[in-house]
């Protein structure tokens, strides 16, 4: 606890009836560079604004140096923020923007002058003090915004997607400068971004968020090499995510081959998800000594490496990155080392819903009546569970054709099929395996055949 400068405990927040943060807990050590990473709408900015004091949490506590700061208004918190799109004051010049906080504190003129000049030098903007902020480029405005926050010597610097508005080249340069600044000043940084590459480059610790929940906390290498679930695996870097089966400790089966791996403790004959990074599949022209073979379907040069898609003899598609190119149509041999196979427990293996018995031929779940075989002996109104296998849910082009209407919310390619998460209009979720191609955001009708609904008392 002693060196936790920020401690977030069980934070929850809803806007209207939408829950944006669900029981978030993590801590930040003194001097650490922590990144909150996730897609837009995952709640990362909400956490940052709560730390800054712009939003109050519904539940949970935020501790700064061990004491709760709930009652401290934002203007008294020893924290400063670098805002998305900078939020510089357009009516003040560079100097007055930076001096804004110091002037409010009524510091003596010469003291202010000294501090402003020092911080301008730090962000390499010394010659710009009289400039109108709106005449500056995006990168320069960013430097002023950082200087404006740093000049107040905050205990923690909060950065809300500070580089999102810059072009790629400028973003790369600023990443390096931010990293250097962090090392030089020793101030704690909490950084919010949706850019996984930026997070991996800059952070000491990454907190991956999705839909208001923490998915994983770890160092960049942990997160990259050992993603804890398929969301993290898919969101961070490129990956092949495949259905597999843990045969026993250190032995896993996927793409209909058996592989050695380093994972233990999953039990025997357990369905799992397997993640293999594209650069971890060794590809060669000869098939001798290969674990399995495949045909090259495409090969694209990506600047440093080649990106290839291959199809195994059993019809699974894999993405591979290699420094050498391989001829499209040729047969190649492939090897995956045990330590490069990341095995994850499956979050679910089947759709399971709470249901009530309507009559001897119908049950009600997800707000609709479905026809199915109801086991004898169940009374009308009885609470039961129903299971529907992923591949038995049928998706239709038109919402009105289905028993339920929904939207494709998240999708994963699993080598030979797609695994989709569907959010219904009532915000229920179900998961579907399909060979058809859908896009995120597609509106779909959902239908389930009566013989595929299994009722469990």
């Amino acid at each position: 606890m002693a060196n936790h400068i920020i401690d977030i405990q069980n934070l929850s927040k809803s806007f209207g009836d939408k829950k944006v943060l669900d029981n978030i807990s993590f801590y930040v050590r003194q001097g650490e560079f922590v990144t909150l990473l996730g897609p837009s709408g995952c709640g990362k900015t909400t956490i940052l604004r709560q730390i800054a004091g712009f939003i109050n949490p519904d539940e949970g506590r935020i501790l700064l140096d061990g004491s709760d700061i709930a009652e401290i208004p934002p203007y008294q918190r020893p924290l400063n923020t670098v805002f998305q799109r900078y939020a510089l004051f357009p009516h003040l010049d560079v100097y007055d923007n930076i001096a804004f906080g110091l002037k409010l504190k009524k510091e003596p003129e010469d003291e202010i002058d000294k501090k402003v000049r020092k911080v301008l030098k730090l962000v390499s903007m010394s010659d710009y003090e009289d400039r109108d902020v709106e005449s500056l480029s995006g990168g320069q405005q960013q430097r002023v915004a950082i200087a404006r926050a740093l000049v107040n010597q905050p205990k923690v610097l909060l950065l809300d997607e500070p580089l999102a508005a810059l072009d790629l080249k400028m973003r790369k340069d600023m990443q390096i400068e931010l990293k250097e600044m962090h090392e030089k000043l020793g101030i704690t940084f909490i950084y919010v971004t949706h850019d996984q590459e930026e997070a991996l480059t800059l952070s000491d610790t990454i907190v991956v968020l999705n839909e208001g929940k923490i998915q994983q906390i770890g160092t960049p290498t942990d997160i990259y090499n050992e993603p804890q679930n398929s969301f993290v695996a898919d969101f961070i870097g490129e990956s092949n995510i495949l259905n597999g089966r843990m045969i026993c400790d250190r032995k896993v089966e996927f793409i209909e081959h058996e592989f050695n791996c380093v994972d233990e403790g999953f039990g025997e004959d357990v369905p799992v998800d397997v993640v293999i990074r594209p650069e971890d599949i060794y590809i060669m022209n000869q098939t001798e000594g290969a674990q399995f073979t495949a045909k090259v379907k495409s090969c694209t040069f990506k600047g440093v490496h080649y990106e290839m898609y291959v199809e195994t003899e059993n019809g699974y598609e894999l993405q591979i990155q290699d420094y050498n190119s391989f001829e499209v149509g040729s047969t190649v041999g492939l090897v995956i080392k045990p330590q490069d196979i990341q095995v994850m427990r499956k979050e679910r293996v089947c759709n399971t819903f709470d249901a009530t018995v309507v009559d001897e031929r119908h049950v009600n779940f997800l707000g609709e009546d479905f026809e199915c075989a109801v086991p004898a002996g169940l009374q009308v109104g009885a609470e039961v569970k129903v299971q529907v296998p992923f591949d038995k849910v049928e998706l239709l082009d038109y919402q009105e054709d289905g028993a339920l209407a929904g939207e494709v919310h998240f999708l994963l390619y699993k080598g030979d099929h797609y695994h989709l998460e569907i959010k219904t209009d009532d915000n229920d979720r179900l998961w579907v395996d399909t060979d058809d191609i859908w896009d995120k955001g597609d509106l779909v009708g959902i239908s389930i055949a009566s013989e595929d609904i299994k009722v469990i008392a």
Partner: protein
Amino acid sequence: MKKFFAQAYVWLLLLLLYAPLIFIAIFSFTKSKVMGNWSGFTLDLYTNFFTGNFEGSSALYSALLNTLLIAVVSALAATVMGTLAAISFHRLRGRTKNTLLFVNNIPMINPDIITGVSLFLLFVFLGISKGYMTVILAHISFCTPYVVLSVLPKLTQMNPNIYWAAMDLGATPGQALRKVLIPQLYPGMISGFILAFTMSLDDFAVTFFTQGTIGLETLSTFIYNDARKNGLTVELRPLMTLIFAFVLVVLLVINLRSAKQAKKNN
């Protein structure tokens, strides 16, 4: 050819629109009681107007003064209240926002006479005797919506984080308002103030219903009563000519300058 007809049409309409004003201006330089009856060029009406050497001069002067006073006070109050309200409305969402904006629009949609009658009934109902207070409250009620609608677009253009940025740097809400929001909203507040000021200056119906019987007159009610009683006081002609000339010059200068500015920025 097409352009010629188009321009001719526009200028013909403008001529008709300006005819009464030009008419007033011309006959401000003669002394006849009835306009249209030229009795020789003279600046007498102007000298009379400025020296107060005519019948009812003190009533006209006090009406002028009242008009300005009421307009300044109402426009100031409307600007303060309307700016704060606009900042607030901008933050609100959903039904609350729509309802408040709808109510805000009512005085602008409502014809003057409805606003006037409704406020008349209010003051009767509350038993408030009518005078300066009631006229000013009435003017504030139809002026503020214009301020709100002038400030709102400036808020949309503003970076939404600016208020938080000020607070993040140690400004209290009051300081954030003074040092950051107001400087940003200034142009909107100014045009809101000017709109409110002119609405108040120009008002006749609402003042008419809320002025009471204490003899409080504004320029509009003075003209109304004057015209009904004994034909218009001739010294109003130079006054109107001067107001018209002043507005013409100010507006043309402002607009020519902003047009030049726009050209420069292009």
